[in-house]
């Protein structure tokens, strides 16, 4: 059974009086263990799709199913709970809380899930170690390299053990070495049974995914073929 399924999702933004339709009956399904790259030109609606999938933005039409639930049929608070439990977000700009250190940023996710504090602490330490941040545990985001920041964000996204990871250009601000580390983490997550939907511009990043979709005229299309690396 798919962790995430979008069926006929349509989304339009009103702009200068007129409406700009960004998604047109987009349909997709992500199975556990899937690692999909989503490509498309800027302004194609990739982020919009991610937000809809991540229960942050209601579509105008179509169905969204996340972990067997219809998030947009739920009340806002219940939707937030579902999001906390099942979805991890990673952004291009990291969006770490500037006044919290690495450990505290990671633990910020547990506030939302309301889980057991000791278990969360334990898991946070584990993730920090796994992502090579042990020496940075008590550093503020401003004291970290961009790669360390993104790995911190990743650890935060994974704290509540979600089944879906949504990454919006996670390597956009990283140098190739750092990007590689992050992509490794995403790949590992998929291998352990999570589903990853990663928006990216970069062909190299997309190549690390198992499949690549592209967003064209508001629809998801399977990329014909991953361009061979020169």
């Amino acid at each position: 059974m798919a962790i995430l399924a979008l069926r006929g999702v349509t989304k339009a933004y009103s702009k200068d009086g007129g409406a700009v339709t960004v998604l047109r009956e987009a349909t997709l399904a992500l199975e556990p263990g899937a690692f999909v790259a989503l490509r498309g030109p800027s302004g194609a609606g990739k982020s919009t799709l991610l937000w809809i999938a991540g229960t942050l933005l209601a579509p105008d039409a179509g169905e969204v199913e996340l972990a067997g639930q219809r998030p947009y049929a739920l009340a806002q608070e219940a939707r937030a709970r579902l999001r906390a439990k099942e979805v991890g977000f990673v952004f291009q700009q990291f969006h770490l809380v500037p006044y919290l250190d690495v450990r505290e940023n990671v633990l910020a996710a547990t506030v939302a899930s309301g889980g057991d504090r000791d278990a969360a602490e334990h898991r946070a330490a584990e993730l920090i170690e796994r992502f090579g941040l042990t020496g940075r545990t008590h550093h503020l985001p401003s004291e970290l390299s961009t790669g360390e920041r993104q790995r911190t964000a990743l650890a935060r996204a994974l704290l509540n053990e979600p089944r879906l990871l949504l990454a919006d250009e996670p390597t956009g601000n990283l140098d190739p070495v750092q990007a590689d580390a992050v992509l490794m983490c995403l790949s590992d997550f998929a291998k352990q049974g999570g589903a990853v939907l990663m928006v990216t511009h970069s062909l190299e990043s997309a190549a690390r995914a198992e499949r690549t979709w592209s967003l064209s005229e508001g629809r998801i299309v399977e990329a014909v073929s991953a361009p061979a690396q020169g």
Partner: protein
Amino acid sequence: MVWREIAHRKLNFVLGMLAVSIAMASLAGAFTLLESYRLRTELFVAERRAEVEADAARMEDDVRKITKNLGFNVLILPRDQNLADVYARGFAEKTMPEEYAKRLANTELITVNHLLPSLTRKLVWEEQKRTIVLVGTRGEIPILQRSEKKPILDAVPKGKIVLGYELHRQLGLQPGDTVRLQGREFKVHKNHPARGNQDDITVWIDLAEAQDLLEMPGRINAILALQCNCATVDRMAEIRAEISKILPDTQAVEFQSQAVARAEARKLATAKALQDVERERKLQEQTRRDREALAAWLVPLLILASAAWVGLLVFGNTRERVAEVGVLRALGWRSAQIVWLFMAKALAMGAFGAGAGFVLGWALGAAWGEADLRAAFDPKLLGACLVLAPLLAAIASWLPAQRAAGQDPVAVLRED
């Protein structure tokens, strides 16, 4: 997390705390000051009143003792004597027979203890070329049916003279010296100390010798009735009735003894002092009321201003933390948790501001009110501050916090 944020944006927190402190300091200060002022006024008035009352009680007691011994005094004058002249001159001009005093003494005059007839004239002392008052006096007329008492005044023996202060001082006369008055020789019997009145230029001689010297045999111009005692309240009416029965062509006036006059002056002074205390109390009460009135609008105004300020600061804080809020929403934080993030900060602002403000207001209020710091401490006031300030801060930050929690997370994340 709240603490981290506070530590991260110290200025925002300190400014909020400061506003709350000022408001709470004004509240605590006003209450402390007014209370210490009230206590001080009460204490002051009570002390002053006790003082005045103690004085008054002591004086009243003195007066009671004096007047009990003295009774009161009546001056009996010829009926046709104009009283205005007596007051102007110091003695009566008209005369009456000396025999009146005896007649009075020989009737059953129950109200009078002592009767002193006298003849007084102002004259020029020929030998010394100066104006003096000459008083002819005699011992008391013994009153019928009364046992012999110690005479209240000593009579001047025949051939002797008693001199007022200015006379013996200026003439350099000592008791035993001989002096001539209108061609007659007298031996100085006694010199009076200064009395600061007509007595200082007065000479006293035997009544009969005075009558002889003034060529007014058998005449007197006043009878002083001393230590009159009456049963009724209207003592003068009683004594007048009695005297006029016996001596129809005399008049009687109350002669105020200095002791009585002083007692009355004291009574007046006491009443006035009490009035002063009362006036002082009213004045201080008015000042207190004025200050209360000032505090009544100034304190709420400051509290409102500080609440508005806290609201504004929290609003600014939410604006600063838009990205943070967006990402927390993406992490699955519920609105209530985000509201709490801001409210907790406002509550901390309120609590710390209240603590600091209370201490400040308490110290300032006590200092200004000149009260003891410990005595001015009011735990209820501290409690009120600690409840009121966080409550106000929470109310003030409610709207901005709601606004922050209600904003669309996507709007923030779109910046990617």
